[in-house]
């Protein structure tokens, strides 16, 4: 059996986040920023929303059905960006994308989300890991 390969992907932390995701709750409809994104590979849908005060994220949450990878990734991301400003978030998105593509990046800034680096060995799952980050990226690139 080669299920130990899976350990590269499904680290303890990831599964913990997936099973008990942080900032995971339905949309209210009153958030300042909101986007829905689809993973075309599997059809999973994610909703992401946050409010900003003085260019800083005050609260953020996500919702939707997804695999362990996408849920954990969204969960870690939301943890990370609370209190961050637009520029900082854009940098994080950039770092994460690089890491997922297997390029050199400042992984330390990504905190817990570093464990998702294992996804580079599972090319079919990269989209799962980056889904929430793409959602954030798109929200940030639309001027409010």
């Amino acid at each position: 059996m080669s299920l130990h390969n899976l350990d590269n992907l499904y680290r303890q932390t990831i599964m913990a986040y997936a099973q008990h995701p942080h900032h995971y709750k339905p949309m209210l409809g009153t958030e300042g920023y909101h986007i829905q994104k689809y993973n075309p590979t599997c059809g999973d849908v994610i909703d992401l929303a946050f409010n900003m005060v003085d260019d800083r994220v005050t609260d953020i949450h996500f919702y939707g059905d997804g695999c362990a990878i996408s849920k954990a990734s969204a969960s870690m991301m939301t943890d990370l960006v609370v209190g961050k400003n637009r520029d900082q978030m854009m940098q994080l998105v950039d770092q994460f994308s690089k890491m997922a593509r297997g390029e050199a990046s400042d992984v330390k800034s990504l905190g817990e989300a570093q464990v998702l680096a294992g996804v580079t060995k599972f090319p079919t799952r990269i989209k799962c890991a980056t889904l929430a980050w793409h959602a954030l990226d798109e929200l940030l690139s639309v001027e409010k």
Partner: protein
Amino acid sequence: MKTIKHDFPILDQTVNGQELLYFDSAATSQKPQYVIDSLVDYYQNNNANVHRGIYELSERATRQYEQARDKVQKFIHAQKREEVLFTRGTTESLNWLASTYGVENVKQGDEILISYMEHHSNIVPWQQLAQRVGAHLKYIALNDDGTLNIADVKRKITDKTKIVSITHASNVLGVINPIKTIAKIAHDYGAIMIADGAQSAPHMNIDVQDMDVDFFAFSGHKMLGPTGIGVLYGKHDILEKMQPAQFGGEMIELVDLQEATFQPSPWRFEAGTPNIAGAIALGAAIDYLTKIGMTEVEKYEQSLVADVLPKLKKISGITIYGPQNSEQHSGVIAFNLAGVHAHDLATALDQEGIEVRAGHHCAQPLMKYLNIAATVRISLYIYNTHEEIDRFIGVLEEIKEYFNREFA
């Protein structure tokens, strides 16, 4: 049936360090060497453009191409060879119907009847048609076990229904629909009957005359044939009145500056250089299947289902969609394992060399109807074996273990 796995060279390889086990034939089937050889033979010996050539090579290519049409005719028991049109696949076949027959015959206020278990390719073309002409698209409900609710066909159909288009075999639920019964109802109301045969043609005897369908669509690549070739069967009388969807090349008779006349069916519908090698190799795939015999194919697949379904059900936490008894279930089996997302389960299986699909299987309305987001799907074909099923069940149990043990 004797084991034929060794006829399929692709199956003799390792994936992620494990022997390949291919359980995704509903997406596309693997090809026997016999079909691959047919492609090689065509390109190494007979390649030329068809129909217009007046030399030996072109005559050979044309003869082989038209022989492939004869083979398809026999395979689906069409009355005439002219009723067989070559397309790229099921999706193109259905789109042609919507954009030609549909646009000509469906008017504002008319109705098109499909079901909740359709593949996107048998939904979206009809949505587009309905939007274009102002018609209504209606959905037939399913019974609790995932079979089509025939009573609901009778409830939903009206005199305004012009087209009924239903999948012959579901690509998710493992259900075979009683097309003959539905066709009878459709015709009683003056509607035409279209069957999506993408998941049936590879696996059972097809008799378009007995089912009395007006159109029947299927794909070569799901029945041992190459990619890029498929079929649209249509009743001769209807085809004779139907406009082609594409224009140019051999389908033309005479071109004036402002207008043109076209060849008779089926050539009228095959614009441009067709997928000649593809059609010929589909013919070879039909030869291969016919040699086994479609009754034998069906029987063998049923034996695989009778093997795997009970074993799957015995694993706690497994939910199977569609009929629960194997006699009613085709070789397409969609399921979920509690606590492990379909996507994660598919990746784990892939690590063991077992290739399955996970997701919505291009059937989002069905997923919503069943109130699920995604499923894992295994789909079996003649090259799969009982040994493979045992290995699959074993690995599935270990994966369940893995996710439970590590992350409970």
